């Protein structure tokens, strides 16, 4: 079905419920759906599990969700940064749970969720603290860890352009987690800089087919 075109970010995230698992795209600021994250905070949903590469930076976006204790658990690869003070405080106070995942395993677990794969053996993390308690196996002389899919209720991602059918293209390294997160969530909500009519994106260059997109909202692009 063609996606719903939301009138603004608040409208776009209005269906997110307490206790939801929410994937949030972006690597640093590139591809980060900042307006959707702000709207998620404003909508009041709480007890969330959030999957992102990081655990919030400075006093914006994901960091504010953590500051306001809307997040029960973070699944990420790199929580600790020079400006991750809200996460650090919540974590040290025992008020947020952390599941630390190597970045490539994070991406692959999201892909597995979207691709109907029940689990996969990855060499990444074998023999490390992050494999403790996980099933391991030696295959052709190499050690592997069994990793499981990360399925979610909602994905919040950012793309450059959507057509009215929900097909997406991204821009440069802002692509990052967007395409895999779009496949792994029951509801994918996308903020884009522009929406074009169906047929406005060459079928050869579509990165995320519209089948993965449920809601699109246009947010005027900032200056680059």
């Amino acid at each position, binding site marked *: 079905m063609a996606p719903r075109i939301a009138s603004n970010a608040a409208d776009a995230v209005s269906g997110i419920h307490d206790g939801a698992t929410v994937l949030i795209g972006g*690597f*640093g*600021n*590139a*591809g980060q759906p900042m307006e959707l994250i702000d709207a998620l905070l404003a909508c009041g949903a709480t007890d969330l599990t959030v999957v992102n*590469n990081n655990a919030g930076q400075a006093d914006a976006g994901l960091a504010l969700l953590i500051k306001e204790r809307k997040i029960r658990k973070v699944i990420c*690869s*790199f*929580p*600790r*940064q020079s400006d991750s003070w809200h*996460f*650090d405080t919540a*974590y*040290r106070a025992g008020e947020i749970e*952390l599941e*630390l*995942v*190597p*970045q*490539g*395993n*994070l*991406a*692959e677990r*999201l*892909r597995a969720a979207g691709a109907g794969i029940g689990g996969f053996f*990855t*060499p*990444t*993390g*074998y*023999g*490390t*603290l*992050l494999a403790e308690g996980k099933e391991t196996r030696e295959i052709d002389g190499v*050690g592997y860890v069994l990793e499981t899919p990360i399925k979610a209720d909602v994905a919040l991602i950012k793309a450059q352009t959507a057509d009215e059918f929900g097909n997406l293209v*991204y*821009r*440069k*390294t*802002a*692509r*990052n*987690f*967007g*395409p*895999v997160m779009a496949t792994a969530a029951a509801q994918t909500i996308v903020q884009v800089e522009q929406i074009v009519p169906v047929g406005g994106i060459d079928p050869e260059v579509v*990165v995320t087919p519209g089948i993965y997109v449920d809601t699109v909202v246009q947010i005027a692009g900032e200056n*680059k």
Partner: protein
Amino acid sequence: MSYSYTAAALTRDDMAEMVASDIPAGSFVNLGIGQPTNVSNYLTADQGVTLHTENGMLGMGPVATGGDIDGDLINAGKIPVTELPGASYFHHADSFAMMRGGHLDVCVLGAFQVSQTGDLANWHTGAPGAIPAVGGAMDLAIGAKSTWVMMGLFTKAGESKLVEALSYPVTGLGCVSRIYTESAIFLIEDGTATVRSTHGISFDELAARLPVGLQRA
């Protein structure tokens, strides 16, 4: 390459230049955050080395400045960079598949410790109260055809960071094949550390200071 010696220890720039000159022409390379990033400043156009950044790009160019800065074009350290002709973009799962699948020729990383069998520790001090963060470290460590380390050979307390067995938490097992330090370059193979060169220290002095058996190249 047989053993060599220079009277002066290597500077960080010397180390970066040496790593750069050791990278085979035409290689696909990932340079880790920190010291390894500096290697890119010494790669020559003739080498035709292609840089990968794990956040989804091959053909990464130099750091962007002035009007070339584009928030959508950053490296794994979140620094704005540029795009070279022949570049390509891809998503995170494809990017780490490229790495994990052994398609990169060389990955250069920093380290806390390396063991004589090539085990790497570079992600977590294990200190009480430390908040761990791993990023792509474990993927990078085991993914490339060759993983090289750049690090200071000694801690501030003077202890060797080339060790018999890691005391820091493991990043990857048996993955490091070369170590570049200010005092020596090591080749790790079959559990043995071979010293390719020493700098500001003789082979015998070095051997006396390190807790692992060494052989001379």
